[in-house]
């Protein structure tokens, strides 16, 4: 399986604190994406970082990518109770000999609980 892994599996913090989640993956990538999932719902895209980028920001989100270590981290600053959700990283390895398109491979997710 090419599936990546997030670390930690679960994280509980207080409102106002920062939350950091890590993702490790196994293959070379075109880009890496982070998604959020509220309980029992579909996933929503948060941010995409390309393989030639090292850091990207979007509002309270900061993503880093280290392709030499095949890892990424997602930082949520000044967390809010509404940030409570599961967070997934997904890698896009691009088209290849065995695959004609950009298929997304997801990790196992981090469950974030932000206490008010």
């Amino acid at each position, binding site marked *: *399986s*090419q*599936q990546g892994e*997030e670390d930690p*599996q679960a994280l509980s913090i207080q409102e106002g604190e920062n939350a950091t989640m890590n993702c490790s993956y196994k293959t070379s990538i*075109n*880009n890496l*994406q982070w*998604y959020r999932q509220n309980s*029992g*719902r*579909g*996933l*929503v*895209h948060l941010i*995409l970082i*390309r393989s030639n980028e090292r850091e990207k920001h979007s509002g309270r989100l900061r993503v880093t990518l280290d392709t030499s270590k095949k890892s990424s981290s997602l930082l949520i600053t000044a967390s809010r109770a509404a940030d409570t959700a599961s967070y*997934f990283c*997904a890698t*896009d390895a*691009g*088209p290849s000999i065995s*695959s*004609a*398109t*950009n*298929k*997304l*491979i*997801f*990790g*196992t*997710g981090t469950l974030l609980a932000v206490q008010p």
Partner: protein
Amino acid sequence: DVKVTQSSRYLVKRTGEKVFLECVQDMDHENMFWYRQDPGLGLRLIYFSYDVKMKEKGDIPEGYSVSREKKERFSLILESASTNQTSMYLCASSLGEGRNTEAFFGQGTRLTVV
């Protein structure tokens, strides 16, 4: 507003039944995907399609087949449902080859096989 719509939110089927899960997108996306999500295992790719009538196996295709007769519709078929196929099924779509773009997800179908 972009949309991926799955035909059912909840479904209960009996062992051995043939089950169809339908997914429709209105964004003219080339790629469509079916994932299943189980606690502790994250999302696992079952099948994906990059064009009408084109499909490729994902990581866990056994017991499933797919159909893409029209660009906007991607169906997942459980040929003979079994209890170990009880899961949350998620459909997604994205733009085609070579483009760095996000995937859009449906709301999910929670399937229970009894």
